[in-house]
């Protein structure tokens, strides 16, 4: 972003990478896949790079408003300095907080999750999903992220993207607005579970495996980690893969 600003250019959209997308090895792959799509679709985008900081979602959900406000206000200062209008995020937590909670702090932007953004690119014909791609006829199930689904009511966009891949989309018994959480939200990712019968991701993995799908599609770095852990624990990592929507598109089209 800094480079673009220096050249006096304003990008079409700012890609908010998020902590997971920047640092987590698995999520970095999603970040890269999404960039490949943006490039293929000739979207003029920028990232904040080192000027991006955590949005503060886990701190706020844990109850630490001070830390949240500090990092959020800093981010808003940067975003407003670059006069950012439109943001796309690959992390539902970043997306939700940027969209719903930054405005009250003075950060008002048009914010989309990459799920909707991808649907938009497909609908506008900026990317064409190859027919008979790698996933033709394969059984795929979609895991709703809480912050995309219930928190923001987006259920249709991810399913429409998946259907474009010519596959056999099967729903889990708890899907859509009744989808079960993967167990990571609300800062659970950063602490041990409370005592109970099983881990939440185990329960959710069971839902996914029950469908017999060979691919679990998700669109949240934390869901992906949780589902992957669950599948590995169930010793199914040979036969069942967890992918982000962006990765599926990249594999399908061979970008």
């Amino acid at each position, binding site marked *: 972003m800094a480079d673009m600003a220096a050249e006096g250019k304003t990008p079409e959209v700012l890609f908010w*990478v998020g*902590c997971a*997308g*920047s*640092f987590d090895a698995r999520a*970095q792959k999603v*970040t*890269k896949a999404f960039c490949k799509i943006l490039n293929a679709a000739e979207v003029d985008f920028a*990232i904040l*790079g*080192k000027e*991006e*900081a*955590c949005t503060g979602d*886990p*701190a*706020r*959900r*844990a*109850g*630490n*408003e*001070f*830390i949240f*406000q500090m*990092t959020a*206000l*800093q981010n808003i*200062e940067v975003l407003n300095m670059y006069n950012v209008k439109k943001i796309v995020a690959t992390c539902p937590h970043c997306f939700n907080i940027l969209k*719903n*909670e930054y405005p*009250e*702090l003075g950060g008002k932007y048009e914010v989309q999750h990459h799920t909707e953004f991808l649907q938009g690119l497909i609908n506008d014909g900026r990317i064409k999903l190859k027919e008979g791609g790698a996933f033709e006829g394969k059984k795929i199930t979609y895991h709703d992220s*809480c*912050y995309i689904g*219930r*928190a*923001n009511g987006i259920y249709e966009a991810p399913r429409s993207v998946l259907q474009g891949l010519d596959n056999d989309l099967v729903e889990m018994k708890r899907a859509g*607005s*009744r989808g*079960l*959480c993967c*167990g*990571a*939200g*609300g800062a*659970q990712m*950063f*602490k*041990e*579970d*409370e*005592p*109970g019968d*099983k*881990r*939440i991701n*185990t*329960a*959710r993995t069971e839902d996914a495996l029950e469908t017999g799908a060979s691919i679990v599609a998700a669109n949240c770095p934390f869901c992906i980690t949780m589902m992957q852990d669950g599948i590995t624990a169930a010793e199914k990592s040979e036969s069942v893969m967890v992918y982000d929507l962006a990765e599926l598109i990249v594999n399908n089209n061979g970008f």
Partner: protein
Amino acid sequence: MIQQIIFALVSIGAIAYAIKQFSSIRRNIMLGQDVEIAGDTGQRIQNTLLIAFGQKKMFKRIIPAILHLFVYVAFLFTQIELIEIFVDGIFGVHRFFAPYLGSLYTFIISFIEILSLGAFVATIAFLARRNLLKLPRFHKNEMTGWPQLDGNLILYFEIILLIGIFSMNGADVVLQSLGSEYYPQTGNFAVSSWLGPALFGGLEESTLIGIERFGWWLHILMVFVFLNYLPSSKHLHILLAFPNTYFAKLTPPGEMENMPTIMNEVKSMMDPNAAMDDVPMDEELPEFGAKDVFDLGWTDVLAAYTCTECGRCTDVCPANITGKKLSPRKIMMDIRDRATEIGQNLDSGDLKWVKEELRAEATTLTKENYDDGKSLFDYITREEIHACTTCNACVEACPILIRPLDPILKLRRYEILTESAGPGDWLPMFNSIENTGAVWQLPDARDKWRDEMLEES
């Protein structure tokens, strides 16, 4: 005449006691803090109509929804009949409206009868569901004792009420066919016109009058019992669902409430031009978040009193499903029980509940000087609030727009901000965000992936 006097006295007593109870509940709800009711009034009215009146969210599960609808609509329409019962009771007349309304009267009573029959079937089905089917959501830990009895009691009440209605109407029908003096012709009631003769046909006139009076009194007494039982029951939702859906937040469920005090403090910290004396240092440290009912919004307390204890929230809570202690229903019930406890202590007026440092001068006990040494944390454990994933499943599931997630987050805020406590596992995350701007403390640059990507291509 005697009947009229008894009726008037019983009515006045029952209504006065009910008013007293309802005003206590109102007071308890108002223990919460002021809440700014933001957003479109039209949308709020629409919510009330669709969700409270139209029971839209109940229809996610069709069979319970239809059964519940019968009980509810029967309840609503029986209230019309009550108007007549009052007129008859006070003036010592019988079926006052019948001659004026003619066939419309027959229609209304028939309609109520059909609904009541539906309600009867529904009630039996609900009783069976609660006690024979063993649905897990009706048998969680928080559903023992009063809540369990409460769930069944209403169903017994409903049955007694229906016995009242049908013995009243049934005997009436037979009396009419005998041409009894005080029982004018009302046309054929949908159910009683066959049920009456089947049950009471061939009885003596005086016996029939006895049955009719018995049914009439049973009906109205049950209504009074119900009115006074309502305030201590989950069935308060019959009334409170309306204000609760009206006042329910309109913001997206993913949006967490902002804390302007902290925001402004952080803003002034970041602003190099802000004068230091903006932040008075000698003031008592403010408390953040909620540790008791007083710190919640009044709408949170209203929600707690509105909760139907149906457990739809707990049924979908990922923490609860996997055996953690957290149950969103219990959170709402705890808030209500704590508010009721405070209310009872306030009613006692006993100065021993005044804050210790103010006790010497205090002359009255008020919510401002109240301190019983307890808080919501005596009801809700830390373990429960820590287990929440903020997944909003409870919010989505609640048929009357309660958001159990809200108070959970307010309790977390108290723990972290005011007590500086909370799960130790979170500290590295907080520190890392504060110091490095990322949730993990990592040596890599934030855009290292980009350099890698440029290399790869």
